[in-house]
């Protein structure tokens, strides 16, 4: 076990824990945002640079500060390390810079984007972005490519977090998409146009932090904040069958995995709760689901502005009183 101090809060964590995960153990405001790191997908992280933090003291043995900001998701803690996140002016400035870089070529088409309301880039822009833009050039665009009838790839919105590539590598038996080209022209693509079809390929949608990968069976059907997220389960041979169904009245509009406050899938039955494509795309009839009850969306975006968490707390209180 090693002791680490993040924003003046000390915590003891396992050896080899990353700074980001140590901060998540503390929770709350000290947690740096992460756009590319995904704890359930080994190998992710280090790319988006939004989780940069300042290391004011490297360790007990060598208390020198680290000269550059470090990516907290891929830097392991050392005993006696002192990390500054919220309390560092340098972090604040440079995180703002990263957000600016991520947004200069982003189409900012939130009004027509299905991800709006649950988009990590929106949240990040809200917290660290600036009003207006200094970018006077034409925004980068890509030729649209078709990756099948279930998943919509909208490359112009992509921030190249590589999460979907890791999903394909780790959850499906054959990866057909990847990263092509380099520099500004880097894109997620299938090289020779191919449909991304596999029992678990739909999880690419869940891990995408922005609206680059969206559900074609849900596209343009509704804004997410008009829907009721309900915990549901079904008998499924391929996955845990534990999902969130997003309903309007008695209709199921879409199905997603159950995600935690960092937007990552929760563990179900001791392993990451990825869901299969059949549950995600095919089961849209409420009769196919055992609907358990309202799902708390533990995030700060518009979806959680309200209704269900309070209602749920009330109903729980009632049950306890009875």
């Amino acid at each position, binding site marked *: 076990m090693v002791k680490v101090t993040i924003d003046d809060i000390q915590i003891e964590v396992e050896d080899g824990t990353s700074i980001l995960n140590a901060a998540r153990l503390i929770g709350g405001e000290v947690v740096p945002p992460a756009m590319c790191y995904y704890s359930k997908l080994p190998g992710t*992280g*280090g*790319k*988006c*640079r*939004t989780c*940069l933090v300042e290391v004011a003291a490297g360790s007990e043995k060598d208390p020198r500060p680290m*000269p*550059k*900001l470090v*990516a907290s998701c*891929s*830097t*392991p803690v050392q005993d006696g390390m002192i990390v500054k996140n919220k309390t560092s002016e340098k972090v604040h400035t*440079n995180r703002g*810079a*990263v957000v*600016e*870089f*991520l947004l*200069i*070529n982003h189409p900012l088409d939130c009004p027509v984007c299905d991800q709006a309301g649950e988009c990590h880039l929106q949240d990040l822009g809200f917290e660290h972005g600036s009003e207006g833009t*200094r*970018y006077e*050039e034409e925004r*980068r665009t890509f030729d649209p490519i078709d990756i099948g009838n279930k998943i919509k790839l909208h490359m112009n919105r992509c*921030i*190249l977090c590589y999460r979907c590539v890791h999903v394909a590598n780790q959850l499906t038996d054959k990866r057909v998409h*990847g*990263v092509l*080209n*380099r*520099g*500004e*022209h*880097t894109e997620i693509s299938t090289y020779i146009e191919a449909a991304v079809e596999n029992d678990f390929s739909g999880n690419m949608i869940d891990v995408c932090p922005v609206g680059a990968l969206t559900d074609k069976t849900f596209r343009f059907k509704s804004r997410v904040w008009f829907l009721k997220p309900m915990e549901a389960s079904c008998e499924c041979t391929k996955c845990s069958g534990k999902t969130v169904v997003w309903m309007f009245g008695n209709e199921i509009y879409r199905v997603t995995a159950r995600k935690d406050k960092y937007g990552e899938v929760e563990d179900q039955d001791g392993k990451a709760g990825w869901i299969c494509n059949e549950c995600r795309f095919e089961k849209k009839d409420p009769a196919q689901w055992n609907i358990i009850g309202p799902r708390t969306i533990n995030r700060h975006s518009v979806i959680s502005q309200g209704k269900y968490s309070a209602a749920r707390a009330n109903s729980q209180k009632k049950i306890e009183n009875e």
Partner: protein
Amino acid sequence: MARKLLLEHDSVPGIETFEVYRKHGGYRSVEKALKKMSPQEVVEEVQKSGLRGRGGAGFPTGMKWSFLAKPEGVPRYLLCNADESEPGTFKDRYLMEKLPHLLIEGMIVSSYALGANLSYIYIRGEYMWILDILEKAIDEAYAKGFLGKNILGSGFDLDLRVAPGGGAYICGEETALIESLEGKRGNPRMKPPFPAVKGLWGCPTVVNNVETLMAVVPIINEGGDEYAKIGVGKSTGTKLISAGGNLARPGVYELEMGLSVEEFIYGDDWCRGIANGKKLKACVPGGSSVPILPAHLVTKTAAGEDRLMTYESLADGGFATGSMLGSGGFIVFDEDQCIVRNTWNFARFYAHESCGQCSPCREGTGWMEKVLNRLEHGQGNLRDIDLLEEINKKIEGNTICPLGDAAAWPVAAAIRHFREEFEWHVSHREESQTRNYGLLKESLVG
């Protein structure tokens, strides 16, 4: 003439063949190291020599070697970084074209020191004819028993292979080089872990530049202490400089560290001054990624001392008034060159070569290129100059690998020293399209 260690025999006809190379004292260091020295002794000689990495960063080679992890039962690798792609740098090309056996010799000795039984030369994709030269030389070395099993009866085995890259600048970054060698997309890895612990196929790996590995040969032949006598302070030995730009006699020169920059540019043995009798305007002393220096800071430091060709002297004054020795790509600009256009040219290179993995570099290099493109073509505003400064500050230090820094430094330095020229491009939009700014200030010219 100055003493030459690497280029001693470069003009001998047929030196690229084994017979001629051997006749001129080749492979002596292999005999000495494998028969008379232990691997640890070889490492110690290199440490004594004070040899610093010739690829650009100038990290002490002996120290790098001493960091190599040596777990039981795990193979170790030595990789030669021949992915020389820095604009202005062409020394490794010359070395490999002329002296392929010197590289092989250096790699045998170095592999022996590090305990590597399989080593690779990772060569850039544009150097295909050199790949043929190297493979021919390697075949000769195998035939003569200097490569393969039980070299010279010492019990040491070494296989040497050449692997061509696809022509990406980023693959000269050591972890991207390793990824590329493994057959993957050449994206730099997150550090730690460093290659010395987890490199090629997860095994401890050392990556060294061509010139560094070649320099091991004279160090073993003459001893590390002898080698350390050449040079000044912590810059020991000889360095190859590829001099280009508006020089009367551009080319690849081997010089003893400590030669004055003035002598190097104007000396009869060296570049013989600026071509066509023009005046020096600026100089990039170490390849396109190091800060550009205006004429008055090229030959003298800000403190008024003579600027020498050493790691320390060129870096004197930090980035405010200094630069870096880098990879030795010495680019000279005469009075008629346009700094804005040159900066745009460099920025275009880095935008093209960014791997696109991390956001500050992917987006920032492209952004700088577009802004500089506008400035150069008479479409810029004064605020663009401040914007460029802002962007490069926000790329620098925030990226996974040093390419972000390498893209930011030349822009920052050009604005620092030649801001008036940038402003002139804004205030004289049309004129700037038909003529160059010329000398910034007559008084600044050294």
